[in-house]
């Protein structure tokens, strides 16, 4: 099973554009990432630029509305993620516990939904979706 380990650094919601972690913290993190890689559990990882350079699209009333960052109302924002493949939630927790994170950081662990986790109705919808897309593209004359 797959889990996302979501890194939530407190204060990142207000970080200036171009804000970067210090070299020492990065070195420790690289070592940790390497341990995930060596253990064969790491599938992917990325760090995210601060929300001050991002944007949010909301859909109140069915209409997309764009707000540029930073987002005054956001209390917690993502700083990055790891995608890992492990045997159990406990194993994901164990890996997260080994992260050389600092006082202001929290890692949230969330299991990735697999096709089999969906109800039959949702599975059917998910399975039909590409066929639908194909039909739409044909209609567009592609």
């Amino acid at each position, binding site marked *: 099973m797959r889990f996302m380990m979501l890194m939530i650094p407190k204060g990142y919601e207000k970080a200036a554009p171009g804000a970067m972690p210090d070299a020492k913290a990065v070195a420790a993190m690289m070592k940790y990432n390497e341990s995930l*890689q060596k253990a064969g559990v790491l599938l992917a990882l990325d760090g995210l630029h601060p929300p001050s350079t991002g944007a949010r699209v909301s859909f109140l009333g069915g209409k997309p509305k764009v707000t540029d960052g930073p987002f005054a109302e956001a209390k917690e924002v993502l700083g990055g993620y790891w995608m890992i*493949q492990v045997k*159990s*939630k*406990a*194993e994901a927790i164990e890996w997260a516990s080994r992260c050389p994170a600092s006082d202001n950081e929290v890692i949230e662990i969330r299991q990735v939904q697999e*096709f089999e986790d969906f109800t*039959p109705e949702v599975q059917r919808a998910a*399975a039909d979706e*590409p066929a639908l897309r194909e039909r739409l593209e044909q209609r567009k004359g592609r």
Partner: protein
Amino acid sequence: MTPSDTHRAIDAVWRIESARVIAGLARIVRDVGLAEELAQDALVAALEQWPESGVPDNPGAWLMTTAKHRAIDRLRRSKMLERKHEELGRELEIQQELAVADFDTALDDDIGDDLLRLVFTACHPVLSSEGRVALTLRLLGGLTTEEIARAFLVPEPTVAQRIVRAKRTLAAARVPFEVPRANELAARLSSVLEVIYLIFNEGYSATAGEDWIRPALCEDALRLGRILAELAPKEPEVHGLVGLMEIQASRAGARIGPSGEPILLLDQNRARSDQLLIRRGLAALERAEALGGALGPYALQAAIAACHARARTAAETDWVRIGALYDALAQLAPSPVVELNRAVALAMAFGPAVGLELVDGLKSERSLEGYHLLPSVRGDLLAKLGRFDEARAEFEHAASLTRNARERELLLERARACG
């Protein structure tokens, strides 16, 4: 933490640390069986103590230190018995090694070497194929005997027996705990890759039972392969195998329909392929290619899988290139199964009649007797040529040969479709 939380945490720690602990111990005591027993002793101690004391900060180091203490205890006890001088000397040496060098992160590189030794030992050609698989899952995958038994649909005592026998064989053959020297490396590595791929295939295309895919086994094999790619990064075939498994696994979801029935490659919904695994697979294949030299059998198979993965629709598949890759594979690792696949590719590239001629050339092949895919492919080609009566007979024959219930249904379905 509740006691059951702690137990789950111990399971997780064991999964992560057991191979490293066993490998580190095996280097010192030079006996994989003994090393595993000592590690198990440490696990029992953890199960007794951690629910009270909590999980220690460095659980791997705790397990290693505890196991080393057990080793010293055993040596002291065994010294009471009369021993040959030579053995006593060796035991003193072991005691010294146990006393120094506590297990910590500074030893990571050594542990890597030890892990590689453990891989080669568990996959040693002196062992039966079943023994290698069971020992590898147990020592390197951190699986319990019960988990292995469940994965392979065999009774637990059978697996326990295989493991005991494998350990005994290793001890009797005095298999040294080492990475093989250059002159045997290629042959020994291919034994390792074979074991990992065997585990993967057992999960991917279950040879028996109701389910067609057992994802947990595929994931175990992938994990072993990824670990090996870190331990032996300069071996192109390791990356070839990892690439092959990643790309094949990317199709796992698309390979089964809503009621668990298999869906053939060309009918699969490619939007359900796992893009992350495809990217990882292509990257692994690139690593194999970048190491230079002609592609080995696993890298060639990965390249074939990559052709399928790169095609956005079945119709876009580059069958000519796949045919050429099968040509290369047939020269490197000739086998009737490769010939059969080559026939399928060439049929797709140049028409069913071309394929049928090649398949007919395989009919007298003894090793394909009882292999359901031969009549299944032949049936498919005959159906494409409009020879439905012959096609039906082939599908029915294929259905009678497969041991997998889901696959049998699919084949009978195709037989019925021939009218």
